[in-house]
């Protein structure tokens, strides 16, 4: 008796990619953009530099990858945390729609903003 395999692997791949990109890039970004300058440890990167980085093709590609994948990482993981952590199995459909929905909406927004 064969069962049709779950489509979960796609979501898991998004989760893994988001988790990996987030793990290796976010700490440095948080320190250099939001913590060190605010604490006075260094001068913040100038808006001109940031605009140039975020506006260049490599920067846009990077943000288009990092932001949506990080959001889908959160959506998948948060869904399971609610599912198992609070035993909200009966709300599974709702939670899935909300988490992946929010991630999709924000990703589309990110895409539009980054490529404008």
């Amino acid at each position, binding site marked *: 008796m064969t*069962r*049709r*395999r779950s489509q*979960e*692997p*796609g979501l*898991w791949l998004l989760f*893994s990619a988001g988790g990996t990109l987030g793990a290796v890039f976010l700490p440095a970004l948080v320190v250099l953009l939001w913590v060190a300058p605010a604490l006075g440890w260094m001068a913040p990167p100038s808006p001109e530099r940031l605009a140039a980085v975020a506006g260049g093709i490599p920067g846009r590609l990077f943000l288009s990858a990092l932001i949506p994948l990080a959001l889908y990482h959160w959506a998948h993981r948060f869904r399971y945390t609610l599912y*198992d952590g609070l035993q909200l199995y009966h709300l599974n459909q709702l939670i899935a729609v909300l988490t992946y929905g929010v991630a999709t909406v924000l990703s589309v927004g990110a895409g539009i903003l980054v490529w404008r």
Partner: protein
Amino acid sequence: MTDTVTVEVRRYRPEQEAEPTWQSYQVPYRREWMVLDALNYIKDQVDGTLSFRWSCRMGVCGSCGMMVNGTPALTCATYLETLLPGPVRVEPLRGFPVIRDLVGDLTDFLGKLRRVSPWLVRETERPPAEGEYLQTPEQLAEYKRYSMCINCLLCYAACPIYELEPEFLGPAVIALAQRYNLDSRDEGREARMDELSQHDGIWACTFVGECSTVCPKDVDPAGAIQRYKLDAAVSWVAGLVLPRSGK
């Protein structure tokens, strides 16, 4: 010097009580005694009505798994000395219905194990005249770790997902499926993936990792499951690119 240890046992006698209760026993303390020895002392000398499973008393049969002070453990492999000054709390393995006292019903596990075909699956059998299937030490090393499983089910007691979602196949079943998937003599990988790449298969697992922590044989079922997730994901991508009929 301690003379005795208090052992508190979770009793359940359906003919007497509707809910489990605790019963306390004083057991002589001997430095070389395991929790199993204490339980056997209770059964032999104090209270013959205590029911529990045990067999080899040396950590290879997997029968004596119970919760010891809240952690799944083989009672034949847990020294009383490590639990001093006590009391030592012994309960049946979590996650399984309790039949009586410390005895749980393991039918669920056995049914799930069968679903993943835990044997060598071959498309074609070689006739004995052609000789054995040869395997190099490297090929053996691929799956050897997962073959060490003694079906003690401590991993099921440690896994919160198994308790929360009883349809979950569970760590040992997936590790044992991997033992055959990674065996060079086996050809059943695709068939097993139909059972495993399901929500109640590997995808319910969220890599808590407690299963591997409590495993007395260092099977690392958590690692087996995560590796299999990668495998299944690669298969899924391949299935998108080169669609196979019916999958």
